């Protein structure tokens, strides 16, 4: 009974990791026992079918440097949800990704109950709604505060992310410099937003990490990366003192530390995998 009750989950592991554990050749007697056990009348109606259990396995298709993927990883961590991380190759997209997100073909994609959910902020909201009884709530419960949180997360995506993207990826030195110059005023806006939303507490979400922290936090390392690549400062204590403290606090938080990569690792990826992004800005 002790071993038999685990059989369905062993089948799930075999399926997820594509390897046989109870193998007909290597463990013939155990294999025959397993078949006998599962067919026994007393067991048949009690044991769940492994394919039903597979539905409960949460899969996340992603790549560890992606700040969008890391938003989702952070949300899953905060909610204490176990999941299988399916690391994408940086250059060639997998069949599973193309099938799960045919419209945008982008990571992250969360697969839950065999159904794909796309777009990082939509996934974070989904996680908050499905696992509403696990751990902290990620979005504020008050509708007005929730609208404000969604507003700032959208501002971060519409403005800040786009500028960081150019500052990292553009092969054009002028465009990179222009993007850097756009980022400083955006961070000043977010400094004000932080002061208002946090109301003197540690995070945008208050005492604990919330939706806007999750939206913004994984970008902190990338802000340090663009400072390195472009040899320009955006994380300036004079203009964004509170945001700077929030950033360091977030980056060093115990929950965050093993989810969000340090900026040195991100820069390493750029150097090794995407060297054309390392454009030296000509000095004027």
């Amino acid at each position: 009974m002790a071993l038999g009750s685990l059989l369905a989950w062993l089948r799930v592991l075999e399926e997820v990791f594509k390897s046989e554990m109870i193998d007909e050749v290597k463990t013939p007697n155990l294999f025959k026992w397993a078949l006998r056990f599962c067919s026994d009348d007393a067991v048949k109606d009690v044991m769940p079918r492994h394919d039903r259990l597979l539905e409960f396995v949460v899969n996340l298709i992603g790549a560890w440097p992606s700040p969008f993927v890391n938003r989702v990883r952070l949300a899953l961590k905060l909610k204490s949800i176990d999941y299988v991380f399916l690391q994408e190759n940086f250059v060639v997209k997998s069949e599973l990704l193309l099938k799960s997100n045919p419209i945008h073909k982008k990571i992250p994609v969360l697969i839950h109950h065999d159904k794909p959910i796309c777009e990082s902020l939509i996934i974070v909201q989904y996680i908050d709604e499905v696992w509403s009884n696990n751990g902290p709530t990620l979005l504020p419960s008050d509708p007005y505060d929730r609208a404000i949180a969604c507003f700032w997360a959208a501002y971060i995506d519409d403005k800040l992310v786009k500028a960081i993207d150019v500052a990292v990826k553009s092969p054009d030195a002028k465009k990179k410099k222009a993007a850097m110059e756009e980022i400083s005023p955006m961070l000043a806006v977010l400094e004000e937003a932080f002061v208002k939303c946090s109301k003197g507490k540690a995070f945008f979400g208050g005492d604990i990490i919330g939706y806007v922290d999750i939206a913004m936090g994984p970008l902190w390392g990338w802000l340090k990366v663009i400072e390195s690549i472009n040899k320009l400062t955006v994380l300036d204590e004079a203009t964004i003192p509170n945001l700077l403290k929030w950033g360091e606090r977030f980056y060093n938080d115990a929950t965050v530390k093993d989810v969000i990569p340090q900026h040195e690792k991100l820069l390493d990826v750029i150097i090794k995998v995407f060297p054309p992004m390392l454009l030296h800005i000509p000095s004027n």
Partner: protein
Amino acid sequence: MATSVVKLLGAQSSPYVNRVQIALNLKSIDYEFINENLAAKSDLLLKSNPIYKKVPVLIHADKPICESLFIVEYIDEVWTNSPSILPSDPYDRATARFWAAYIDIKWFPLFGELRQVKGEEAKAAVVEKIVEGLVLLEEAFVKCSKGEVYFGGESIGYVDIILGSYLGWVKAGEIMASVKLLDETKTPGLVGWAERVLLNDAAKDVVPEPQVLIEVLNKFMMASAKASSN
């Protein structure tokens, strides 16, 4: 149930404002519509939406809420009387939000491209992209509606409101570019849906007629041309 005054800062020609009007109507909420002159924005608008300085802004109990998608969700959460605008199931909600984002970020901006593009070949290429998007939305309609008449099922929901609010501009685009975008052969479900959705009580008389929108656009283009030549 909220008894405070609800105000909507807007302009009737804006599809983003229209979607908030439809949501307010759906929930039978009384509100004051404050018409904004977008060429000379009011102090109230600039104070209520300092970041984007755009309409719509919903002001509820003196607190401003900006960005049409979030305003619609806010309305659904505060006024819990039926009908619900977003689905109750988390996966269906994620799907509705996905399509709203696709429509706003990927699909509708193609109309701006259509207006600006030069030459027949380039125009045909943009038209093709718009129609491809509509084919995707047709598939989404079939899946989301589950055999009913709206994306939201029996009653209009989030995606109906988001996509429906653009229908005036879609028709205006068809007239200005002399092209058919909503085509019965490619997107029969959406053609039927488009006729139905704007006849719904909540949406009736909200989305302006295409000729009105074309006039608004022409006035705006003339004003811009004048401003840039001065």
